[in-house]
């Protein structure tokens, strides 16, 4: 290496709240890719059914929902076959829950790395929310098959699918940035999270349509940022209803505030990870 290309590093205590150095994350993008790739790779390596699990998990969930809520409880489904109606919501929800779980626990799972190697810690939650996209895409294949079976053709709105996925990713990341550092100190988070996500799921229009909620409660209900997102997915895939601008607005506001705040908070908390993890 010639003198001209030698990097010069200055190490000092970081000062203030906005010493973010996001450029370091960009420079570590290859490691980010490898960490996400590792997650995808090892998830199915030792399972006999391999990648099939990515499909089976949401499929069984949708099947059970169809039986219980569609058949027995006769929940309305906006005039669609209940199985399609619920699967179109179960897939993005499964992605969200998994992304959130990994983003929140990733630092602890990779505590060895955090203690022994330097890299911008921010890439751990980012890689965590990126890797379950693969599962989501496999699941989509099943949904497409099911839609084909019922003769449902998506409209141009399906082109907006990546947009909804990105919004979901941002929301999971935004929350993970807050929860992850707390989990480093208090592992209680790990035990609380599954319970919280389950309650959250039933507070989101997954087994029932948004239209079931009485008019006067809709505004309150839509404060849940996942409401607008799930309805957005349904609209994109199945063409039901119209995107609820209010609840999408809520989602955007929550994401914007939590994500920016989360990055600042995470960067501040990051300084002590290696010491307390």
């Amino acid at each position, binding site marked *: *290496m010639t*003198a001209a290309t*030698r*990097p*010069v*590093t*200055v*190490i*000092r*205590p*970081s000062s203030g709240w906005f010493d973010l150095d996001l450029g370091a994350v960009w420079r570590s993008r*290859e*490691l980010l890719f*490898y960490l996400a790739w*590792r997650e995808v*790779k*090892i998830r199915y*390596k*030792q399972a006999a059914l391999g990648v099939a699990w990515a499909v089976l998990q949401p499929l069984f969930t949708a099947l059970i929902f169809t039986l219980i809520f569609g058949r027995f409880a006769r929940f309305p489904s906006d005039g669609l076959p209940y199985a399609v109606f619920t699967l179109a919501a179960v897939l993005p929800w499964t992605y969200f829950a998994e992304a959130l779980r990994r983003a929140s626990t990733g630092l602890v799972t990779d505590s*060895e*790395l955090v*203690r*022994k*190697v*330097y*890299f911008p810690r921010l890439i751990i939650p980012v890689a965590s929310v990126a890797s379950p996209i693969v599962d989501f895409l496999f699941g989509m294949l099943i949904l497409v098959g099911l839609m084909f079976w019922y003769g449902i053709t998506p409209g141009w709105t399906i082109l907006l699918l990546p947009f909804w996925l990105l919004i979901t990713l941002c929301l999971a990341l935004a929350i993970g940035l807050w929860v992850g550092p707390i989990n480093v*100190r*208090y*592992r*209680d988070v790990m035990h609380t999270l599954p319970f919280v996500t389950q309650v959250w799921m039933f507070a989101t229009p997954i087994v029932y349509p948004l239209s079931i909620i009485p008019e006067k409660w809709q505004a309150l209900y839509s404060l849940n940022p996942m409401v607008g997102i799930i309805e957005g997915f349904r609209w994109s895939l199945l063409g039901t209803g119209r995107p609820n601008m209010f609840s999408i607005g809520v989602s955007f506001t929550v994401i914007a505030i939590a994500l920016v705040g989360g990055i600042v908070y995470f960067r501040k908390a990051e*300084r002590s990870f*290696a*010491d*307390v993890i």
Partner: protein
Amino acid sequence: MSKDIAISARGLGKHYLLGDAGGRNDSFRDLLVSGAKALVGARRKNAFKDFWALRDASFDIRKGENVGIVGMNGAGKSTLLKILSRITEPATGTARIDGRVGALLEVGTGFHPELTGRENVFLYGSILGMRKEEVTRKFDAIVAFSGIENFIDTPVKRYSSGMYVRLAFSVAAHLEPDILLLDEVLAVGDLAFQRKCIEHAKELQKRDATILFVSHNMFSIKTMCDRVIYLRKGQVIYDGDVPGGIELYEQDCRGAALSWTETRPEEWPIYITDCQMIDDSGKPSSIIDYGARPVLRLKFAVRSPVEDPNFIVAFVRSDGVAACNYSSELDGVKLGTVQKDGTLELQLPPMKLVSEMYSIEVLVREKGFQRILSGQSAGIFHVRHPLYNTHFGVFHEDAAWRLREAELAT
């Protein structure tokens, strides 16, 4: 910063809060409990102590210089390397580093057992800070150096621990850093691996790399370094030539409590105050020739009478292997009730341990093998022999050989 300076540190410091639960609450419940205690004022004053693991460390290291970081356990050596490798952030001070840093604090961190050797090479290379293009270019060399070509597509979990380390080390060795941070203390446990680290560091030395080397092995420090920075209780107390640094280390080794003890030697009923190896010429020396019969002279202090003390002396090799052990009880020595300070001399049998560094650990137990009264590191010594090193085992003893040609012929 002048052009030939690789690392320039000014006032580096790092402190931790030490308290009831090591300064932190491991679960939310602990937080609630300690919060409640704080409310009712049940927490003792000074329950949280500010502990400086490293304090006001300043030094300049020129390019191509090889510096040994020496000190007792807990002196702040690893903290210093962790700050310089950016794993943890300093609380005070700055450091300016000119060049690519490679940190060998522990080899193989980030290897995933489910992935194949090939996959791990790329993952680990990336973790160490190599570009994908760089790993691709060096891939064949990395695999060849590791010597496990045939298993490169096998999941790493099926590797023996030796193969695992070889592959991981091979990746690390191809990092080609300008500045190498090497922590032999953390890598301890595998002498073969330590040796590889040193060979690698020597290779880098030839290429004019700057090396910061943490080690408890004064042999390695002597052969590798041209300067020693000595840390004591987080502070740089010496920065100069190698012999001066080693002398300080040998001084500090005398009488320090072993890591598992909870109190200070001065609080024990009996403890060692001085320890010397006396060589065959009758002079104190920390270098003992293989085959010599040195005398170990232990001075001890008694605070309260001890019944039938059993003095146990262990020689522990620099990688933590307990190489041999002497016990006054097993040698049939009855010391009765010891009430006053005194000196104990141990005439050692001919030294047959191989050439290495050994630390002397002294334990005193009550009434034979009952309660342990004290445990101290009493000093270090080196065994000198031109040939017999750890390749030859823990010790070497001459043996007799007989060849019976007639029987072989039939």
